[in-house]
């Protein structure tokens, strides 16, 4: 309900609909929602369920922020490690290539939930460095658990992008007297970045959705908050509402990413 209000600013900025904002379904939905909310507040006839939801919504949004933080950190770490591993998987050394292939295979074929359990329960809850003790909270362990599959996927995306550059370009650049490093930096890499962006964004969306699994190892994320809200209020209609709000929140965050990915993909098709 009110969550749809938060959904709209992100999606109404669709360039395709910019010409006729009044005909966009998003704008219409937002207007309807705003009208209903205004009517309820004006007449003081807000249904009890929505009053409850209104009270819980800030807590849920804070929970969603935890999910977003986890996803951003996991993706940043996963991208760094993944690029390194992707680069190693192209190295001339056969031993290195084998090791990286095993890494990629292992972490792409493991269920993400199992990896999260792995990092949460195997790592200690605090780290002793010389004489200081650092806490090692669960949400950081979840970040690590998600960074593992992310890095394996980024490595594959990187390898695929490098290999999709025709080798004739290397030869042509060599004949123009570019050095190996220059070819890589000036010719291959810029094209790779463009090719890697859509699958990388897909991966980000899927990692964001996987952050919901953090609730299973006791991180106070949005799913956990929804469960607490549903148990606290203990009304059938509120339970329905809160879980579908949860669905809407994730959709509101991930759908614009998916749309942007598709726009990018279509733009690259033309080149």
């Amino acid at each position, binding site marked *: 309900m009110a969550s749809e209000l938060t959904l709209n600013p992100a999606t109404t900025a669709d360039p395709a609909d910019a010409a006729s904002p009044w005909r966009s379904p998003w704008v219409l939905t937002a207007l309807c929602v705003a009208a209903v909310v205004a009517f309820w507040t004006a007449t003081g006839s807000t249904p009890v369920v929505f009053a409850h939801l209104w009270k819980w919504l800030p807590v849920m949004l804070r929970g969603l922020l935890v999910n977003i933080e986890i996803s951003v950190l996991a993706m940043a770490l996963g991208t760094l490690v993944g690029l390194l591993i992707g680069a190693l998987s192209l190295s001339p050394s056969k031993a290195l290539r084998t090791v990286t292939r095993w890494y990629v295979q292992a972490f792409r074929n493991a269920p993400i939930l199992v990896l999260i359990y792995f990092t949460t329960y195997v790592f200690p809850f605090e780290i002793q460095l010389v004489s200081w003790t650092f806490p090692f909270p669960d949400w950081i362990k979840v970040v690590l658990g998600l960074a593992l599959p992310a890095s394996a996927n980024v490595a594959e995306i990187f390898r695929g992008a490098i290999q999709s550059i025709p080798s004739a370009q290397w030869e042509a650049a060599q004949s123009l007297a570019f050095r190996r490093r220059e070819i890589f930096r000036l010719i291959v890499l810029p094209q790779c970045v463009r090719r890697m962006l859509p699958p990388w964004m897909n991966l980000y969306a899927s990692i964001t959705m996987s952050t919901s699994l953090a609730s299973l190892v006791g991180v106070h994320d949005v799913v956990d908050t929804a469960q607490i809200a549903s148990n606290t209020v203990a009304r059938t209609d509120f339970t*329905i509402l809160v879980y*579908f709000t949860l669905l809407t929140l994730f959709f509101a965050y991930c759908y614009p990413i998916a749309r942007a990915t598709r726009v990018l993909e279509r733009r690259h098709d033309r080149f």
Partner: protein
Amino acid sequence: MIDGLLPGLVAALKPLGLNYAFALDASERAAFVRGLGITLQLCLLTIPGSLLAGVAIAAALTSGRPWLAQPARAFVEVTRNTPTLVQLYCAFLVLNMLITQQLRPLGGANPLTPFVWVVIVVSLHKGVFHAEALRAGIEAVPRITLEAARSLGFSQRQLLARVELPLAVRFALPSLVNNLIDLVKMTAVASAIAVGDVTYESIMIWTQRDNVLELLLLILLYFGLLTWLVSLAGRWLEERWRMPGYGQ
């Protein structure tokens, strides 16, 4: 044979710091093996289930009828952009509760177990991805091939059954196999609603024995085996259905 072999294996792994003593306890071993079986059952049910759902959704998407295609498109977008766990909660905690409440005054028990809900949700979730792969496959069939077949006097049904679908399925096969590998991994979410799959049974064991690493290694090996089998089947199908003139 198991009685002779297992203690030996457990004793051999002990010096490596791996404590597999749970395997010697008859009830815990039985629980773990049951978990292995449940995960296998989940895979064996969701693979055909997701393929059926995928064909149905792809048919709706490519039907050309807006009243069918638009709801299907909305379903695809919502399913792709929300976490499976949340979908599972929406189905099991919300829909299941509603069904139970509706049935209670009638005196009937809810026939849908958590296991059934996992099969339904995972099948529909992956069915959406299958549908997208199939749609891409259908769109990849060259127009000119269809025109040629039509000019050779194929009827509309023959065209679909003999030319368009066989080609589309072959084009879609690599991504279908990829989706199925994902699906095998996804069955681990079943543990979230206490379906006794291998992950759930392992959690039960490691809360007693504190041997998380040992059990996780077993789980990873098991999922590795399952995904390997799926990819093997996929490669076998690709080999069998190879078309001259496509790929290497």
